[in-house]
């Protein structure tokens, strides 16, 4: 089985979010970038397939040269080779279009992407990619097994979960649950040394225009300070929720 894991290069969760150029650009100053948490679960599941069932695992990112340390980290975790499509990730559609070309050129059976990235949270790339290449698609995937060309997946739904059966070629939007968090891999010294020798191929982008354009950013209005209610005066809390906040 040939597996492609899509790796999004995102600001670390604890990053302070700021904008520059008149609030039109994300300020990367002092921001540490990491593998998107949802993709980390997918990458670890891919390693499981590789080790237990025999599979090759490539990772891919659409982005500039600055994303290479993130791809090297994925190689250090155990991916066989990495591909970087040399173009900025402008919107979900344009990224999916670039990925579609990589999947078609590489003949992958299974594409594991994250449910969503933690920067734009659009949850659109995996579904769009599946639509473009005509593969089956399972979103919010929390368990995946593959037997030959048949796959069984569990996906999270509002208020529960659902078990589905499908076939390869398949794209999933994966998340926590695909593997236990305690099984997530951290690159070790040997992995880091080996990653240096693994191929990281840079491919030039295909034609793909973005369909959306972020014009400006804003931060939520500063919050007023919390109104504290005495623990012995819970009547007051009920009163505030009813009369002031109007939520009960």
């Amino acid at each position: 089985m040939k597996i492609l894991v899509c790796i999004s290069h995102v600001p670390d969760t604890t990053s302070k979010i700021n904008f520059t150029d008149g609030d039109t650009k994300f300020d990367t100053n002092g921001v540490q970038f990491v593998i998107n948490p949802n993709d980390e679960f997918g990458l670890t599941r891919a390693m499981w397939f590789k080790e237990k069932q025999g599979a090759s695992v490539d990772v891919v990112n659409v982005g500039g040269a600055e994303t290479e340390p993130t791809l090297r980290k994925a190689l250090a975790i155990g991916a066989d080779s990495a591909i970087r499509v040399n173009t900025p990730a402008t919107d979900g559609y344009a990224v999916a279009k670039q990925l579609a070309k990589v999947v078609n050129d590489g003949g992958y059976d299974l594409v594991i992407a994250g449910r969503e990235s933690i920067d734009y949270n659009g949850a659109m790339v995996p579904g769009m990619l599946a639509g473009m290449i005509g593969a089956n698609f399972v979103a919010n995937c929390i368990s995946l097994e593959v037997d030959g060309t048949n796959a069984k997946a569990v996906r999270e739904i509002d208020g529960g979960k659902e078990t589905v059966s499908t076939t390869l070629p398949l794209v999933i939007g994966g998340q926590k649950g695909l593997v236990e968090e305690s099984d997530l891999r951290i690159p070790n010294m040997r992995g880091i040394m080996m990653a240096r020798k693994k191929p990281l191929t840079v491919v030039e982008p295909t034609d793909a225009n973005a369909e959306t354009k972020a014009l400006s950013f804003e931060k939520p209005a500063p919050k007023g300070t919390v109104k504290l209610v005495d623990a012995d005066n819970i009547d007051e809390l009920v009163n505030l929720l009813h009369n002031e906040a109007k939520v009960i």
Partner: protein
Amino acid sequence: MSILVYTESENGKLKKAALEVVSYAKAIADQMGTSVTAVAVNADNAETLGNYGASKVLLVKDDSLKAFNAKKYAAIIENAAKNEGAKVVVVSSSANSKYLAPLLAVGLDAGYVANVVEAPSSVSPFTVKHSAFTNKAFANTEITTDVKIVGLSNNSFGLVDSGGSASVEGFSPSIPDSGVTVESVDKATDKVSIADAEIVVSGGRGLKGPENWGMIEELAEVLGAATACSKPVSDLGWRPHGEHVGQTGKPVASNLYIAIGISGAIQHLAGINASKVKVVINTDPEAPFFKAADYGVVGDAFEVVPKLIEKLKAFKAANA
């Protein structure tokens, strides 16, 4: 050239989010000088969508569509959008709508923006505001394609009863093979789900153990709320994984979020920041959650929550 909305239902009953997306679509239609057509699948009371601004409902009745299927449902909406010549398609932010929207975007060659929180600031160019960076910021984004898809964040627009009426027409487009078969669904039917809930009551590690969740459930029941938890709580197996909210868990966009014994770590706040009013109950006055909350009680959950339940019961009785 109407606005098309996909309205979700469950067991024949339209969801609240369905009424909200129609209300929202009506606002866009008014801005653009056009009307709203809704698509509903197996809904029993489709005509009620008229109250919220739909003038026409395309109703698909088909037993083979009982279980949600993203590709089939996307094909239905795509068909309807093409028939109606719709320039804007609105969907909700439920897990199912977020599943089908990217497929629909490819089918319609439409730009799609998810997590939209307001009516468009302009319809020409078509510009919407949506949350980004796990609710730490908003982006104003223009959709540049001819057909546009808007994914509305739940509870962000509210319901607007416009007192209109809708004609309901049967609709039976051809539906493709989906390639994905639902084998089984495991869902507590009597519980409010986090995505649908207007109120969410959430417990953290401060509750000390699963045996103490009785009061959380009781509080949720009094409020008609969904229950949720922080990540360590589900990691410890005190609560099911589906209840974990935050960056790596479920997103919450409720009107009221009550956090009990939760510290308010940034990854937790990322998932719940879209909630409108936040109440925190915590023994530690330095807990970071107090900075994010609207109302706070510095106190022991084991004393405060039973009191809150008692007071709310009295309030409900007095306001029944």
